[in-house]
C-alpha cells in the first residue's frame, strides 16, 4: 500500500524535540504544565465520584448522615504528616530553583519518609493489615462502610505510593547530577503531583473521619 511510502520522504532536519535551547525547553515546559493540570482535572473526577458514593451511601434508614467509627488518632496523625510533607516537597522545589542541591536532596528524603509514614498509618493501622492487630478492624466486605472506606483510602493510597516512587526517582536522578536551577520540570511535576494528592486528602479526611454521626456511638 502506498500509505507506507510516507516514510520514504526525506528528513527535512526540522528543529523539533532535538532543539536544546532554553527557549525550546521553556516552550516544552509550558505544554507539560498545561498537560499536568488537565491530568489533575481528569483525576478530580475519580475522587469526586468516590466522594459522591460516600455521601450517597452513608445514610441510615432515617436519612441521617453516618460514618463508621475509625481511629481518630491515626486519622489526625496521618493528616498532619501528609500536610507537613507538602511543605518539604515545596522546599525541595525551591531549593533546586536556587541551586541548593543539598537542601533539595534532603527535602526529598524527608518528604518520602513522611509519605511512607502516611502509608503505614493508613495501611497498617487503619486497615489493620498486620495479623495481631487485624481483629476488630473494618474489612472491605463490611457493608457500605467497608466498601467506601477501602475504596477511598485505597485509591488515595495508590496515588501516595506512586508519588513516593516519583520522589524516589527524582532523588536518585538528583544525586546523579540531573536537574538545575533552570531546568527542573521533573521536580516541578513531582511536586505539584504531590500537592495534588495532598489536596485530595484534605477533602477525604473530613468525609471519612468527621462528617456525620459515628455509627454505634451515641446512636
Amino acid at each position, binding site marked *: *500500500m502506498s500509505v507506507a511510502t*510516507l516514510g520514504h520522504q526525506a528528513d527535512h532536519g526540522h528543529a*523539533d524535540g532535538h532543539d536544546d535551547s532554553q527557549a525550546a525547553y521553556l516552550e516544552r515546559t*509550558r505544554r507539560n504544565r498545561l498537560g499536568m493540570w488537565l491530568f489533575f482535572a*481528569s483525576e478530580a473526577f475519580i475522587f469526586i*465520584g468516590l466522594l459522591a458514593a460516600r455521601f450517597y451511601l452513608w445514610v441510615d434508614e432515617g436519612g441521617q448522615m453516618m460514618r463508621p467509627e475509625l481511629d481518630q488518632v491515626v486519622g489526625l496523625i496521618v493528616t498532619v504528616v501528609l500536610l507537613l510533607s507538602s511543605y518539604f516537597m515545596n522546599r525541595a522545589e525551591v531549593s533546586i530553583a536556587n541551586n541548593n542541591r543539598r537542601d533539595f536532596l534532603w527535602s526529598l528524603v524527608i518528604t518520602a519518609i513522611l509519605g511512607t509514614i502516611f502509608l503505614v498509618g493508613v495501611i497498617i493501622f487503619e486497615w489493620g493489615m498486620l495479623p495481631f492487630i487485624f481483629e476488630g478492624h473494618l474489612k472491605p466486605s463490611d*457493608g457500605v462502610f*467497608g466498601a467506601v472506606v477501602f475504596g477511598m483510602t485505597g485509591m488515595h493510597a495508590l496515588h501516595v505510593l506512586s508519588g513516593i516512587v516519583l520522589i524516589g526517582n527524582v532523588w536518585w*536522578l538528583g544525586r546523579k547530577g540531573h536537574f538545575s536551577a533552570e531546568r527542573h520540570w521533573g521536580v516541578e511535576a513531582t511536586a505539584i503531583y504531590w500537592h495534588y494528592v495532598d489536596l485530595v486528602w484534605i477533602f477525604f479526611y473530613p468525609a471519612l473521619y468527621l462528617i456525620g454521626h459515628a455509627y454505634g456511638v451515641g446512636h
Partner: protein
Amino acid sequence: MSLFSLGLVRAIVGQILGMLTGMATTMLIRVMLGLPAWAAEPSWTVGAIFSIIGALWAVGALSDWAKWMKGEETPMHHGPPEGKPAWTRYFGVDYNHKVIGVQYTVWGIFLLLVGGTMALIFRTELAESGRQFLSLELYNNFIGMHGFIMIFAILLGIGGMANYLVPLMLGAEDMAFPRLNALGFWFNVPGSLLLLSSLFIGGWDAGWTAYPPLSARGPIGYQLFFLGVFAVGLSSIVGSLNLLVTILQMRPKGMSLFKMPIFCWAVFATSLIQLTATQLIGLSFLMVSTQRALGMGFFDPGLPGATLMTGLGDPILFQHLFWFYSHPAVYIFILPGLGIISELLPVFSRKPLFGYKWIALSSLAIAIVGFLVWGHHMFVSGYAPVLRYAFMYSSLLVAVPTGVKFFSWLGTLWGGKLTFETPMLFVLGAISVFLIGGLSGPILGTVPSDLPLHDTYFVVGHFHATMFGGFVFPFFAALYFWFPKVTGRMYNETLGKIHFAIMTPAFWVQTLGQMGVGVMGMRRRIADYDPTLGGGSIEAWQLSITIAGFLIGFGVLLMLWNFFQSAEVGVLAGDNPWRSRSPEWQIPSPIPEHSFASPMVVHGEPYDYGLPEPYVAFAAAGDD
C-alpha cells in the same frame, strides 16, 4: 525479517506472558497466605492487569519513559524504523501523528467489522420468531459485545480522525506529546483483545450497560471486560489531554480559536468530555470489579435488615456513575462526526460555513449540557420523582445547540454550488440519518412517552440513528474525503456512489424498522418475540431489518475493497483534488514525514470560498 520485529506480534505475545505472570503472582500470594493456589476470579483479574502492562512493555510503548526514569536522553526518531521495510512502522510504536492516526483508523475499522459480524449473527437469529441457532448465553453475550466493540471502534475512529487531522489543520509539526500519543493508541490493543477474549472464559451477559446486581454475579468474563474498558478509557483520557494541549498551545501565529478549522472545535469539545467523564465509567466498573473480587458491597443491598456495616449498597448508584460517563459518551461519539459534516459542507457547496461561531459554540454547549442529562436513562429506575422533571428539561435543552447545527448546515447548503462526490453524499446521508435520530430523541427524553417506550426496540432504533448519523456516515465521508491525502491516490468514485446508494436506504429501513417494532412492543435484548405483535406483521418487519443489516455490511466491504484497490491502482489525486482551503490540502499528498516544509502563516478565514485570499500560506523556504 523475523515476526517479532512487528510490534503488534510482540504486543500480543507480551499480553499472554503478562497474563501468565499475573496468574502466577496471584497463586504465589495465595499459597503464602495459606489459601488454595488456584481461584479463577482473582487469577484472571490480576492476570488481566498484568497483561495490559505486558503488552505495552513488549511493544515498546513504555521504553522512553523507562529511559527517562533512568535519566537517559531519548532523541526523537523520525521516519520508518531502521533496517526494516517502511510499512512495518504501522505495526509498531511510531511517534508520527500521521502514522498513529492511520493505526487508530485501521484498528477501529477492524473492530467495526468484528462488532458488525456479531450484529449480523444475532440479526439472523431475530429474522424469525422462535429460536433458531443461537444459544441464549451466546445471544446475550453477542448483544453486549456488539455494543462495546462498536464503542471501542467509534472511539478509535474519532481518535484516528483527530490524531491525523488536528495537527495538520493547526499547521503543527506533531501533537504536543508524541510519546503519549503512541501510548494512547497502544492501550487500545490489549484493551480490545481483553474484551474479545472474555468470550472464551464465560463472557458477560448483562448487555453493554453491565448493571449490577447481574454483572456482580455473572461469569468471570466480566473482569476481563471491565479491564478492557479500563485500558481503552485510559487511551481516551491521555488522547484527549494531548489533543487539548495541542489545540490550546500549538496554533500558529494569527490563528485565534475562532479562526481554527471547525473540526478542531468539535475535537476540542469532545476532548473536554473524554478527559473528565471517562473517569466515571472506569470508577463504576472498578467498583463492580472490587465488589466481585473483594466483596466490597457498593451496589449490594445485603440481606433484609442489613445495616451500614453489613450491606445497604445501592445498584442505583451504579447507574448514576455509569450514565454520568455513558451519556456524555454519546456526545463524544457524535461531536467529531458533526464536525466533519460542518467541515465538508463548505468544500462541496463552495460557500462559507454559515454561522461559524455558532457552530463552534454549539459543540461546546452540547458538551456542557451533556453533563447534566444522564438521569434520562433512569426514568424507570426508581429515583426521586422530582429528578424526572429536572432531567427531562435538561435533556430537551440539548435539542437547542443541535438545532443550531442543523440550521447552519442548511444555511451553508442554501444557494451553494453543490457537487455530489461520494464524501458529500455521505455528509448529506449523515444529515438525513441524524435528523431521524434527533427527532426520535425528544420522544424518549420526555417522561410520559419514555415510560412505555423504555427498554423497547424504539430505543435501539433511536440510538442507531444517532450513531450512524453522528459517527458512521460522517466517518465514511471522512475516509473517502481524506483517502487521497493519506495515500496520494483517488478512490473509485463509482464504487463509492454504489456504496452510498446501498447503505443509505438500507439504514433508513433498519432504523425506522427498529423504531416500528419497538412501538409494536418488541423488547430489546431478547432472543425471541411474540409473532402476533403488530397484528402479525412483526416478522416481516424483523426480516427487513435483518436484510437491511446485511446490505449495510455489504456496503462496508465494498468500501474497504475500493480502498485496498485504489491505494494500489487509483489515479494520482494531486495535492488538492477538492480545491479545499484547509491547510492539509496545501501540502503534498501523501504528506511527507515532516508535514510542513516551512512555517504556516494565517491570512484569511478558513471557509471564505470564492475570495482570492487564501486561508493559510507558507513562508518561502529560507524565511525561517
